[in-house]
């Protein structure tokens, strides 16, 4: 009994936890497919893919993505190289110096990105001036500064990842290679690098992601190369559209896809290693798709996701939400009009009521009800109107009728409908 409660509460907790983690992503993804101009998931109006279209027509966003990729690749190259050098250094120096060295190398992670951005800008500007170069020199190029600035701290992340792997490296391996006639460069390339490859890949991915999402350092250094984050931040100032949700959706999809692919790959390698241990030597290249799917939920999910994506893209090209959007627009317009009418009627009623009160006070003035009848349709519910009707008879029947239906059948409204249809 107690156990059952415990189990249920664990599931509830897990549910809450994942809702907290993934909920925003799901909602945001939904907004990418909803037609309203402001990203929102409810009320659901029309399934649309126009925001993806809008995204790929947005020059600034595309340019931002391109710059981000350029900066990312540059940062990956520089950071992984510096990180590897730092990690190698860490394993070579004596234990006494090591802790000091480690602190220095790790410090950039602790320094706020803003400070790094400013200091990068100031430092390279100084260097630029010292060398007597102009404002358009390579050293003041936005791409260069951004890569350098981001690498100052991303290299530290890379080093942490690489050190973890390097600590498991047996330096005797290098000695063995040297002993067998390899030069130091050969030993590095043929023994150490292959050993480090998985960590280098991890560090590369980490560096790319860190670079891609960086804002606070980049904001000082981007110059004429605004990255995606910079462009997004500038856009948000003027209000966002679901095109940004569409971009986010694509990024989420790529990330999930990449993670699942990686997972499947690891599983596959494990299986191969296991098969080899059992004595069979399977051909590594000849792994068939069914084998790849067997007993691997991640791979199955991956395939489903791929099929889903293809379906979505397929429908996107075939499906046109124009009719739905037009319908929704019409409904909305009508709603808006109705609201306006109601508002107007209410205002009229208020005014009439005021006048009626004035009239009651005066008692002698006859002309009071007339203007109220002419102008208003919404004073049906005003108590004074009723009394007016009794007094004045059928003097103003039309307007009062109109007001009862909220102006739906107003000839003017019909005319407008015609116009919008013919457009």
């Amino acid at each position: 009994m107690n156990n059952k409660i415990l189990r249920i509460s664990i599931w509830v907790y897990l549910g809450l936890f994942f809702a907290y983690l993934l909920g925003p992503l799901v909602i945001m993804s939904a907004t990418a497919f909803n037609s309203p101009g402001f990203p929102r998931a409810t009320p659901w109006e029309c399934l649309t893919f126009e925001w993806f279209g809008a995204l790929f027509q947005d020059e600034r966003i595309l340019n931002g993505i391109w710059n981000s990729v350029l900066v990312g690749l540059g940062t990956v190259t520089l950071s992984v190289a510096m990180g590897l050098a730092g990690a190698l250094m860490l394993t070579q120096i004596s234990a006494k110096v090591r802790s000091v060295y480690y602190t220095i190398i790790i410090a950039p992670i602790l320094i706020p990105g803003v400070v790094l951005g400013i200091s990068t800008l100031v430092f390279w500007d100084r260097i630029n001036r010292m060398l007597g170069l102009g404002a358009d020199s390579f050293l003041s190029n936005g791409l260069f500064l951004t890569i350098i600035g981001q690498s100052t701290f991303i290299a530290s992340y890379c080093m942490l990842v690489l050190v973890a792997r390097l600590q498991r490296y047996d330096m005797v391996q290098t000695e063995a290679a040297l002993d067998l006639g390899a030069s130091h460069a050969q030993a590095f390339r043929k023994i150490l690098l292959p050993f480090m490859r998985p960590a280098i890949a991890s560090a590369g991915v980490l560096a790319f992601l860190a670079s891609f999402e960086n804002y606070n350092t980049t904001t000082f250094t981007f110059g004429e190369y605004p990255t995606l984050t910079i462009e997004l931040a500038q856009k948000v100032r003027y209000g966002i559209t679901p095109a940004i949700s569409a971009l986010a959706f694509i990024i989420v999809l790529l990330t999930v896809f990449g993670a699942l692919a990686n997972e499947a790959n690891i599983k596959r390698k494990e299986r191969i290693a296991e098969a080899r241990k059992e004595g069979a030597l399977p051909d590594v290249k000849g792994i068939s798709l069914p084998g790849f799917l067997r007993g691997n939920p991640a791979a199955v999910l991956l395939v489903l996701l791929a099929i889903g994506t293809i379906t979505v893209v397929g429908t996107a090209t075939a499906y046109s939400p124009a009719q739905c959007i037009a319908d929704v627009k019409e409904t909305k317009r009508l709603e808006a009009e109705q609201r306006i009418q109601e508002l107007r009627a209410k205002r009229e009623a208020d005014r009439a009521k005021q006048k009626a009160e004035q009239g009651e006070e005066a008692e002698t003035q006859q002309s009071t009800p007339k203007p109220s009848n002419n102008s208003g349709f919404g004073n049906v519910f005003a108590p004074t109107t009723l009394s007016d009707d009794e007094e004045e008879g059928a003097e103003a029947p039309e307007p009062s009728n109109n007001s009862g239906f909220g102006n739906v059948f107003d000839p003017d409204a019909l005319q407008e409908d015609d116009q919008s249809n013919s457009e």
Partner: protein
Amino acid sequence: MSAGVGVDLENLWIRFGDFVAVRDANVHIKGGDFFSFLGPSGCGKTTILRAVSGFLDPSEGKVLIGGNNMIGIGPNKRPTALIFQNLALFPLMKVWENITFSMEIRGASSAERRKRADELLDMIALPDQGDKFPSELSGGQRQRVAIARALCAEPDVLLLDEPLSALDLKLRQHMRTELREIQKRVGITFIYITHDQGEALTMSDDIAVMRAGVIDQIGDGKAIYNDPATAFAASFVGENNVFRGKIKQVNGGEALISTNRSGDLVARISSANQGKLNVGDDAMMFIRPEALAIAPDGASGDHFVTANVTHEEFEGNSYNIFSEGEGGKEIKVSIPNLGQSFENHTGQSITLEYETKNAVVVPAGELAAE
């Protein structure tokens, strides 16, 4: 192959800061020999090996390989190949790639490498295992792959740094004979590092016994075992019973020692110490357990020892009697099991005898730690 390439260490000193790892080593290793450095861990034998392979430069002295001074020549340029204590096979390469790594460095084609790997795999009795990874092999197989990898580099001198220490006893004994056979087949000089006197005695042509950076004795197995030069060599190689005392009388090749516990005993002066021991010197006398025998009760003289038996054990091939020795040490007697019946002596006093040629006297010195 020819007679092989010799290795000479001349006045070799290796220091790490204030610590002297190797002190004035002079060794001549003949080409084609199986030469062992035997000593406890930390005695400097691995340091010597690293100096020969080129991983560290000596502070003083010379390393000659085939008569050429190797100082300043890096490990990748020396005609040596080293088998590391942990083997250091490359885990990401298959067995055949491991074996032919030295050929890859020289730029040999893949087909050539494959062919050579197959030859070597046949030689180490691991045919058709070339496509496995080292992690998929057993300890003994890995051992042989490491040897093949070293031999593939066609070195003049093969250096082995306690390569058998990670193996279990059975495999270790098997690999001893195998190593010896491989050495005879390829005919190159082997320099072997070990702390296991059994390995050194069974495999080597010559052995250097090392203690704290100093080479105590160089000789073949018999000389080291039967004719130790120092107290350390006597106590480190094989089991030995020690008797401390002072030289009372020197008589040609023999000496009379007045021992602390057993009166005057006669012993042979080891050949390295002939003429060096004088009356009144502190000395140590060593008798192997198998050289002692039970004497008739009441016998006495300069080759009899009396002792109280503390315990006995039956070891299968021998019957061991332990009695109180000197300074907390035991006197061990080992009687070969030839089918005779063994009496129980525990708690009794027995008299032991030995032949003079089986007792050896050396100047007093440091004993090997047990």
